[in-house]
């Protein structure tokens, strides 16, 4: 009867066993202390029980060695858990250099995924098994949280910022995608699935649903439609800086500071251009806040990224430096 009841989630990513090992270690530690204290309390309650209300207990006031012992031993155990958990955390939040990039937008109440090659999906994400996938996403309205329980990864979608989750799926199959941050009426309906496929099947899925234009081509189209290209000329003679080969590089600002050109900086420069002005350029650019949807901003970001080498989108973006990724979340 109970065979159909899951008690433990599927391990479908390379990091899942590492999270679970730590989990089982903490289960063991906590079970030990829970049993220890419970047994001690029950044994004392039985052994020293009396029904004589005038009886008096022994005159024991405390013991410094015991107090120190049960302060220091738990502290050492806590430090071990802390160090182990932090090690796992670093790998959970820092994607490797070579990732398959996917973009996403959360809005009430759906997840919209955009692949580099132009495929769009709603509440469904197709990925190949055995390859690191990095999802860069934001929210169009309120907070959401992108959660793949079988991969043990989660990050909040925060309007106005980019967040990332990354994973390497280890097992072909279909797994839950949940919104984990409360977002209103249909919060529990903001769910979907991630479909992990064999590489060959993934390739045929990609070609079977191939969009007419890749994401960066769509970005390029927008770049022209919005007349970005009149100022951001590729030869650098325009009123705005050239965007060629800028992504992932350091840029000097009017304020004297420098900024790494990452997804967040490109997004910020589109929506609030005056916030971090590049050295030597005038604050001429109008804001595109409210004029470009988050999905289109992501297409523009991908276009700027694609200007890296010789233009044109690529399924694998490898040019980005490793250190840029986690910092996208800190970038203000």
């Amino acid at each position: 009867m109970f065979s159909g009841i899951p008690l433990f989630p599927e391990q479908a990513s390379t990091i899942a066993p590492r999270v679970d090992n730590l989990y089982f270690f903490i289960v063991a530690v906590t079970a030990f202390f829970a049993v220890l204290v419970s047994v001690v309390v029950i044994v004392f309650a039985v052994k020293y029980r009396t029904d004589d209300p005038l009886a008096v207990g022994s005159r024991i006031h405390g013991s410094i060695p015991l107090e120190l012992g049960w302060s220091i031993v738990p502290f050492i155990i806590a430090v071990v858990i802390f160090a182990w958990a932090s090690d796992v955390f670093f790998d959970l939040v820092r994607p490797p250099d070579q990732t398959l990039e996917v973009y996403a937008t959360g809005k009430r109440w759906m997840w919209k995924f955009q692949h580099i090659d132009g495929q769009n999906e709603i509440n469904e994400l197709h990925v190949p098994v055995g390859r690191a996938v990095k999802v860069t996403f934001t929210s169009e309205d309120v907070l959401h949280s992108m959660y793949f329980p079988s991969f043990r990864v989660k990050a909040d979608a925060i309007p106005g910022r980019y967040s990332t989750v990354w994973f390497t799926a280890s097992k072909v199959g279909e797994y839950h995608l949940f919104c984990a941050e409360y977002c209103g009426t249909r919060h529990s309906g903001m769910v979907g699935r991630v479909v992990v496929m064999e590489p060959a099947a993934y390739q045929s899925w990609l070609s079977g649903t191939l969009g007419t234009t890749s994401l960066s081509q769509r970005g390029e189209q927008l770049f022209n439609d919005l007349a970005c290209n009149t100022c951001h000329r590729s030869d650098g003679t325009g009123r705005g800086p050239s965007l060629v080969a800028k992504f992932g590089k350091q840029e000097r600002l009017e304020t004297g500071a420098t900024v790494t050109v990452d997804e967040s900086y490109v997004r910020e420069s589109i929506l609030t251009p005056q916030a971090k002005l590049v050295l030597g350029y005038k604050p001429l650019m109008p804001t595109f806040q409210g004029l470009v949807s988050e999905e289109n901003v992501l297409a523009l970001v991908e276009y700027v990224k694609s200007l890296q080498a010789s233009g044109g989108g690529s399924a694998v973006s490898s040019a980005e430096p490793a250190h840029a990724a986690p910092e996208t979340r800190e970038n203000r």
Partner: protein
Amino acid sequence: MASTASLAAPTAPLVTYLNHQHGVASWLLTKDHKRIGLMYMVVVTFAFFLGGIFASMIRLELATPAGDLLSADTYNKMFTMHGVAMVFFVLIPAVPAILGNFVLPLMLGAKDVAFPKLNLLSWYIFVIGFLFTVYAMVAGGVDTGWTFYTPYSSRASNANVMMTGIGVFITGFSSILTGLNFMVTIHRMRAPGLTWFRLPLFVWAVYATSLVQILGTPVIAITVLALAIERGLHFGIFDPALGGDPVLFQHMFWFYSHPAVYIMILPPMGAISEVIAAFSRKSVFGYSFVAFSSLAIAIFGFLVWAHHMFVAGISVYSALVFSFLTYAVAIPSAVKVFNWAATMYKGAIWLKAPMIWAICFLGLFLVGGLTGLFTAALGVDVHIHDTYFVVAHFHFIMVGGAIMGYFAGLHYWWPKITGRMYSDIWAKVAAVIVFAGFNLTFGPQFILGYLGMPRRYHVYPEEFQVLNVLSSAGASILGVGYMLVAIYLLASLFKGERVGANPWYATGLEWTTQSPPLPHNFEVQPIVTHEAYEYTRREVTVG
């Protein structure tokens, strides 16, 4: 009522704080800390009942995966109002405002708190805040979650966010003034000879709590005010569309709301120290460690707020710092548990109802505290954050810890408050039912959480149903347990055996005056000549 408590059947004292004045006005205008404590009890009990009804609606809805009992919006309002009612109107005031008000001056050998009129004002502020909140609930409810996260609360929600916010804002002042009052009372009103290290540990716990109330509560007031300014005047503070930062709200909210956890749990911990000492007939093991651990928890409690935000876009390095500090603050709590267990060693343990409630507290608080090791672990928290694991964890602390501790204290001081004894056997039965029902309600939620079921879900995947049904079944057992408590406590008011000054043969000044106490507590000013919990001389005042 087989009670061994009274050797010679005591008779009712002639003049008590309950009978020296009559009529509604004598209550509504009272400056007596004991009466004010009881008036808090009435309001808090009502809020507990209200929050309990919301909780049962949640558990009924979740008995099936589909959203078939309530609409999605109604469900969202249910868990929001459950949280608001329980956190702001039950957990925060329960032990300090009810038990603290009643016993603190008695424990200190004082006639009243330092500022009796201010104490009454605190109650009125509390009631006004509660009325605003109840109005918000009746007039359509609120659906933001008790955490009021922006920009949902400032931009998207159509519910009564403002009215609820005003209620929480007002109530905060009651908490601040009560903290201030108690702190001054502890400094200035101690009986001659009652030095700091002779104070009962409950007093230390209330002192530490007062510190948090005074320093932390203004921040939630500022946060709610900022939310109101953004929502009402469209002034960009938290909403990125207006140039604000939604994560700032979370920092400000948790800067109060995490220390608020210690407002909820420290006073029950203090009550547990009293009960375990009294029924083990022994002084608390490591008195000064337990006393200072309360202060350590209160102070370190202010430095861990961002552990609620590990996946909310804070930097990797600040996550590391907050994770480490969270482990640091766990140590003083662990020290308390070990000391309570050690207090029972070679005691003369009298297993009356309050002790049973205290032992149940120990079991549940232990689980609540230990599961905090999971949520503080960065690599695990990414997975379990915002899932039912967290829901189960904080209910073990808040209900298993704070509410069980409140009930242990209530059963301990009930004969002092009312002059009558409840049924010991029914009280023990109720403790066991609550303990069992609680574990059945929240135990399966740990498994659900690790499986990945997110919190605040109206509809959930079918594979989670069996565990949810178990949880709902547990909730109904829990409900029966609480009803039972209400029934035998109310019955004791009419049929309970009368008790003398000290039915538990406990130490502590509150047991040296008659039950119920005199209007001004003591006939003569008590003078303290010995440490707390001096269980040596058994000839202490009995009747």
